[in-house]
């Protein structure tokens, strides 16, 4: 694996090179500023123009550097098509929520605090690599699925339910990146998070009617509407599959917009996403706030949020159909069962 490590402290770079070698990563290039890193990437990628993949397989970025900082560098790297999914790990002393959130929003895959432990460094790089490979396989499988199938057979159902990463919308990240973000906050004792889920009402109908690529574009459109709806509230949003999205917000920051549900229902209607039967195009669940101490707490908070929006969706469906809602007790979808 070719790694580019960027830090303005030469001793840290030396320590990273030695620690990475100790963890089994011997192909490491270093740069002592964001600009040198960008120059290096441009020069190497120009040499390997025939490769669709970039010259580096992983980036380790310090945040506080003179000139362009590591978060801005992360944004610049993500703009390059060859590095849209390459693991980017922030390696930094900064541990406040603002920087952690900005880093993940800029496209970071994970966040490691200095001083780092070389064993943890190695395992976090391997995990980031696995995550990116999974995303890539997931997207490939998604787009390679047979468009001939007309009903929701097992393969189609799996595709519909897959938490396919929605790309190209600011602050919308992969589900596992969202988990990494929450884990990093919990490591730093920053527990003030809440989750809120959203349901794209006609997701299933659209999935059956459209091809995978068109449905994927529609998911991007829905994600963009939700992202805009957050207004001034800081958030990160992920697609959970089945037209469900979950956002994570900072409870101590700007509050969620008042009448969030009405705002999104109106936005969906204007975007032509309102079902003909009168249901809102996007349904908003109740915010769920759980203390996070372990990975399971993260799953629990995210699942409680999805349960809330699902319950709301079932009630609205029942109202439209004029039947009694059948809401199972302890409604939860175990989306993490195979992780």
């Amino acid at each position, binding site marked *: 694996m070719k790694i580019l490590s960027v830090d303005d402290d030469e*001793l840290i770079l030396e320590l990273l090179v030695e620690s990475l070698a100790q963890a089994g990563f011997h192909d490491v290039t270093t740069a002592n500023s964001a600009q040198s890193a960008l120059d290096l990437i441009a020069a190497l990628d120009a040499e390997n123009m025939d490769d669709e993949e970039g010259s580096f397989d992983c980036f380790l970025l310090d945040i506080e550097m003179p000139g362009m900082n590591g978060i801005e560098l992360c944004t610049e790297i993500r703009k390059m098509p060859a590095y849209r999914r390459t693991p980017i790990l922030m390696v930094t002393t900064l541990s406040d929520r603002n920087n952690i959130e900005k880093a993940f929003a800029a496209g970071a895959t994970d966040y490691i605090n200095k001083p780092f432990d070389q064993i943890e460094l190695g395992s976090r790089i391997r995990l980031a690599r696995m995550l990116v490979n999974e995303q890539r396989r997931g997207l490939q499988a998604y787009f390679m699925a047979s468009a001939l199938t007309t009903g929701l057979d097992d393969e189609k159902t799996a595709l519909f339910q897959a938490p396919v990463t929605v790309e190209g919308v600011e602050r919308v990240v992969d589900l596992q990146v969202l988990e990494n973000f929450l884990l990093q906050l919990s490591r730093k004792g920053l527990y003030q998070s809440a989750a809120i889920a959203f349901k794209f009402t006609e997701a299933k109908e659209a999935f059956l009617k459209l091809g995978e690529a068109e449905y994927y574009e529609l998911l991007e459109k829905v994600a963009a509407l939700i992202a805009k709806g957050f207004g001034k509230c800081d958030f990160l949003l992920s697609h959970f599959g089945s037209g469900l999205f979950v956002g994570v917000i900072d409870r101590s920051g700007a509050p969620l917009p008042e009448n969030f549900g009405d705002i999104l229902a109106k936005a969906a209607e204007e975007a032509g996403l309102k079902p003909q039967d009168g249901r809102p195009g996007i349904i908003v669940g109740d915010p769920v706030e759980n203390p996070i101490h372990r990975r399971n707490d993260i799953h629990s908070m995210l699942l409680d949020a999805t349960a809330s929006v699902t319950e709301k969706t079932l009630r609205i469906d029942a109202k439209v159909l004029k039947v009694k809602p059948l809401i199972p007790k302890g409604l939860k979808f175990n989306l993490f069962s195979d992780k």
Partner: protein
Amino acid sequence: MAKPDFEGALAKIRTRFLDRLREQSAELRQLLEQAESGAGRRDSIKAFGAIAHKIAGLAKSVGFAELGQAALEADQTIIRWLGDEEPQPSFSDVLWTMKNCLARCEDALSGNG
């Protein structure tokens, strides 16, 4: 277990860290005095924080855990003092973390770190 060549490389980085720490300590002392005297206080404290930040990122990895912790506390307290988020640390808290950081630098340099 770390390989012998890793231990050797780490020892070299540690030596260079201590060489740099000698210069940084002198700078930190001067900045602390400026902060206490009140002349250019904010700039002095900010510059102290930048040096503490660098020390914090490396000290523990090269065997100076106490220094790393003291530098991290100084860095974080200074960031909060310079920022506008509540609750803000008092100036005496800031001075205490600066003095503690400097004392741990001197411990490390005298072989007591």
